[in-house]
C-alpha cells in the first residue's frame, strides 16, 4: 500500500486520442479532461502495474466522467453564456505567504501567461505579495527582482492578518486570493473574468482546485477523499438552497480559501476577515468558510466557477496531512461553527443540525474504515476521522474563545 505515485494527465478530448503511457514506477493515473481548454472532468484510477492506459479504456473514462458536463456546457454555450476572454474590472491578485519563497516563485511564474492573455490594460491588474511574519528575506528579495509586483510585509503571524493587510492595500475592485502552495491554470484568469461577466451581481467567487502532484501516499489519500474538488458545473449560491437543510452553515461546499475572490468593497464593508480564524498555527482554518458564510448571510451571491482553476500541492507527509485534517478541518471548521452559533442566532437550529450531520458522517467513516481494515480491504486510516472528531470537539468547546484571546495578545504586541 505504501510508496504509491499517481501520474497526472491533462488531456483535451477534442484532440486525437491515443494510449496514455505511464512512467515505470507509478501505480495509478489521475486524468483531467478538457474540451477546448474548458475542464470537464477529473478522475483517478489504479493501474495495477500496467504500463499504459489503452485508448479504449481512456475513452470509457471520458464517457463515464464527462458526458453530462459536455452536454450541459454546450447547451449553455449556445445560449447567452459569455465565452472565455471577457474584459476584467480592476483586479488585485493577492498572494499571502509565509516562508515559502519557492512556492511564491512557482506561482508568479504560472501567473505570467494568463495575465498576458486576457484583454486587460496592465494598469487594470496588480499582483500583491503579502509576506506574513517571515523568518528571512528570501521572499522579499525574490519579489523585488520583479518590479511589476508589489510587496508588503505583515508582522503579526496568521493567514487572516495577511488577508486583511491585502484588503487594505488592494486598489482593485475585485480581489482574488491565492495561497502560496498553488499554481494557476492557463484559463484561471479568463475563467474568473467570464464568471464576473455572467454574474455582475455576485460578491464572491470560488474556483476549482485540483492536485498539482500525486507523488506520495498522503497526497493520494487526500485527493481520494475528495480533496478540494467541487465539481465541473458552475453553481450560483444565494440566500437559500433547496433540499439542503444545513445551508449555508455547511460552508465547505462553496470552495476553499486557496482560490477565492471577492468584490473588495463588499468584504471591506463586512469588516474584513476574522483574525481569530485562519490564525496561523493555533487555528489554521475556518477563516475562508467564515467569510463565505458572512457574504451569503449578508444577502450576497457567491458563484463557484470550475474554469477558475488552480492546482494545489497537497501535504506530502502523512503526519502533516493528519495534522491538517485535525487542525484545519476539525478545529478550524468547528471554531467557525461555534462562532456562527453565537453571532447568528437565527441560524442556530441549522448549525446544530450541521454539527450532528458532520458528527454522524465522521463516526460513520470511523466505523466503515475500521471494518474495512479488519477485513483486510483497501481503507483509509480510521484515525484521521477520529482525530478530526477530537479536534472538532476542541473547536466547539472554547476553541474560538481561546483563539480570540491569542489574537488579542498578538495585536497588542505588534500594534
Amino acid at each position, binding site marked *: 500500500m505504501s510508496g504509491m505515485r499517481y501520474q497526472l494527465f491533462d488531456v483535451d478530448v477534442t484532440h486525437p486520442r491515443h494510449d496514455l503511457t505511464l512512467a515505470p514506477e507509478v501505480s495509478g493515473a489521475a486524468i483531467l479532461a478538457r474540451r477546448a481548454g474548458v475542464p470537464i472532468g477529473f478522475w483517478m484510477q489504479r493501474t495495477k502495474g500496467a504500463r499504459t492506459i489503452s485508448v479504449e479504456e481512456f475513452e*470509457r473514462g471520458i464517457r463515464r466522467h464527462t458526458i453530462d458536463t459536455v452536454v450541459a456546457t454546450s447547451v449553455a454555450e449556445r445560449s447567452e453564456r459569455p465565452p472565455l476572454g471577457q474584459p476584467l474590472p480592476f483586479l488585485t491578485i493577492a498572494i499571502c505567504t509565509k516562508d515559502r519563497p519557492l512556492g511564491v516563485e512557482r506561482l508568479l511564474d504560472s501567473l505570467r501567461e494568463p495575465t498576458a492573455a486576457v484583454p486587460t490594460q496592465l494598469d487594470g491588474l496588480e499582483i500583491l505579495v503579502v509576506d506574513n511574519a517571515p523568518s528571512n528575506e528570501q521572499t522579499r528579495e525574490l519579489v523585488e527582482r520583479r518590479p511589476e509586483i508589489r510587496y508588503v510585509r505583515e508582522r503579526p503571524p496568521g493567514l487572516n492578518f495577511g488577508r486583511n493587510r491585502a484588503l487594505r492595500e488592494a486598489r482593485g475592485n475585485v480581489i482574488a486570493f491565492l495561497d502560496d502552495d498553488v499554481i494557476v491554470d492557463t484559463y484561471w484568469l479568463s475563467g474568473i473574468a467570464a464568471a464576473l461577466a455572467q454574474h455582475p451581481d455576485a460578491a464572491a467567487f470560488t474556483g476549482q482546485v485540483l492536485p498539482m502532484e500525486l507523488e506520495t501516499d498522503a497526497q493520494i489519500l487526500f485527493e481520494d477523499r475528495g480533496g478540494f474538488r467541487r465539481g465541473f458545473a458552475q453553481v*450560483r449560491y444565494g440566500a437559500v438552497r433547496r433540499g439542503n437543510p444545513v445551508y449555508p452553515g455547511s460552508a465547505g461546499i462553496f470552495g476553499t480559501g486557496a482560490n477565492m475572490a471577492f468584490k473588495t468593497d463588499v468584504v471591506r464593508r463586512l469588516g474584513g476577515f476574522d483574525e481569530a480564524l485562519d490564525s496561523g498555527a493555533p487555528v489554521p482554518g475556518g477563516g475562508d468558510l467564515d467569510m463565505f458564510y458572512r457574504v451569503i448571510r449578508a444577502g450576497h451571491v457567491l458563484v463557484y466557477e470550475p474554469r477558475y482553476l488552480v492546482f494545489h500541492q497537497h501535504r506530502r507527509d502523512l503526519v502533516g496531512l493528519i495534522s491538517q485534517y485535525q487542525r484545519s478541518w476539525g478545529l478550524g471548521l468547528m471554531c467557525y461553527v461555534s462562532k456562527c452559533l453565537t453571532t447568528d442566532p437565527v441560524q442556530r437550529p441549522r448549525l446544530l443540525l450541521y454539527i450532528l450531520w458532520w458528527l454522524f458522517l465522521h463516526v460513520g467513516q470511523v466505523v466503515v474504515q475500521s471494518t474495512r481494515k479488519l477485513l483486510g480491504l483497501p481503507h483509509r486510516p480510521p484515525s484521521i476521522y477520529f482525530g478530526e472528531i477530537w479536534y472538532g470537539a476542541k473547536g466547539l468547546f472554547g476553541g474560538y474563545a481561546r483563539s480570540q484571546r491569542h489574537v488579542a495578545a498578538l495585536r497588542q504586541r505588534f500594534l
Partner: protein
Amino acid sequence: MTVLLPARVVHMTLDNGAQALTRDHSVARALVIFWHDGVPLGQKLLDESALPLSAAQMADVAAHAIEAAVGWRLFSSGFNPPDPDSTWKILSRSEPAPLPAVIATTAPLHALQEQRRSHRDVGARVAVVVCTRDRGQALARCLRGLVLLQPMPDEIIVVDNAPHDEAARLCVEQFPHVRYVREPRAGLSRARNAGVRASSADIIAFTDDDVEVNRNWIAVLLGAMRDPSVAAVTGLVLPASLDTEARWIFERTLGGFGQGYRSIRYDAKFFEQTCWFGVPVWRIGAGANMALRRSALTAVGGFDERLGAGASGCSEDSEMWYRLLAAGYVCLYEPSAVVLHDHRETMRQLRHQMRAYMKGHVAALLVQWERHGHRGNLHRIFVSIPWYYLRLACRNGLRLFHQGDPTLWAQVRGVPAGIWYFVRHRATANAPSVS
C-alpha cells in the same frame, strides 16, 4: 405581512436562447418549464429570493435542467431514464453515450431541431373524447383549446356524464365541430366507453374537462402511435397554476402527474419483472392525457365500469394499461404530448381527491387480481402500501427534513374504503365490449 402565493408557473422557450427572469414579489417560488421548438425539455424550481436572473445566468440554469432530456434525444445511450422494470433504480446503469458524437456536439438544441420529423403523414383517423360532469366553464376553456389543435382531430366528442343541468350541452353547441353525447349512468368509465362507441376513429385520445391541451398534442400522440405494437400512449401533465396551497402540495409533495421529460416504453418485460409486487401501472401516466388504439380496445374490452371517478374514485386508466400490458401490448409515455391540468383548488377538495385516488387505486388492484389472478396486486395492498404509510407517518411525525403531508390521513382512509367498494361490487358486470 402579506401571505405569499406558493408558486407561479413560468414557461420559457429556448428557441432564441434563455431569457431573463424578473422577481415576482407576490409568490414564493417559480417553477420554470423549459421548452424548445414546442417540446418540453425540463423544469427547475427556483426560490424567488434567487431572482432576478439575467439571460446569461438563466442559460446555465436551463442547461442543467434540460441536459438529461437533450442528451437522451441526441445520443443512443448514456442518458436513458431509469429502467421502468428495475426495482433497484440505482443499480440499473446504462452504457455511456458514444464518445465522438458527444465531443462533436456544439449546438445540441439545433441538432434536436434537425432530428425532429413531421408527424402529419400518419394515415390513422383520430378522435378526441372529453368526459365532463357539471363543469360548464372548465369545459368551455378545454374546448377552446381543442379546436386550435394542429392538425385538427377527425372527431371531437364531449360525453356528458349524468349531468344535473344543461350547461355542457349549451356549451358544446357553441362549437360546430364538437359532438355531444350523453351518458346518463354516472361513472367515468361508462362515459369513456360511451365516447369510444360514439366514435369511429382508429385512435381515441382522452382528456378531461379540467385541462388545456398543447397545440401539437394530437400530432405527438399520433407520431408515438406509428409503432404498431404501441396500444396506449400517455403524455406529460403539467400544472396550469400553483397559486394555492392545495395545488402546490399536490404538485410537489404528492408528485403531481409529471413523469419526467424522457419517454419511457412499458412492455411485457416490465410487466413480467414487476408482477410479483404489483405492476406499477400508475407510473405510466394519467387518464387526462392518453390515447388508445381501437383495435386493442376491441381485443381487451372497454374500461371497467366499476372503476373511475363517479364510481370507485379513479384508476380506470391504469387498470386499462394493466390489461393491455398483460395481453402483450406496449404502453408508451411520451412527454412531448403536453396538457396543462388545473389541480384542485382548496385543501378540502384535495383531501377528498386523495382519498378517492387511494380508494380507486386499491379497488383497481383488487379488480386486476380478480381478472388475472396476479398475487402481486394483493402484495401491494397488504405489504407495500401499509409499509409506505408507516414510513410516511414516521417522517410526518418527525417533520425534520420534510414539511409533512396533510393529506396522509385522507389517503389512509381510502385503503379500507377501496377494499369495501370492491367487496360490494364483486359480482357486477365489467369491461363491456366497445365495438
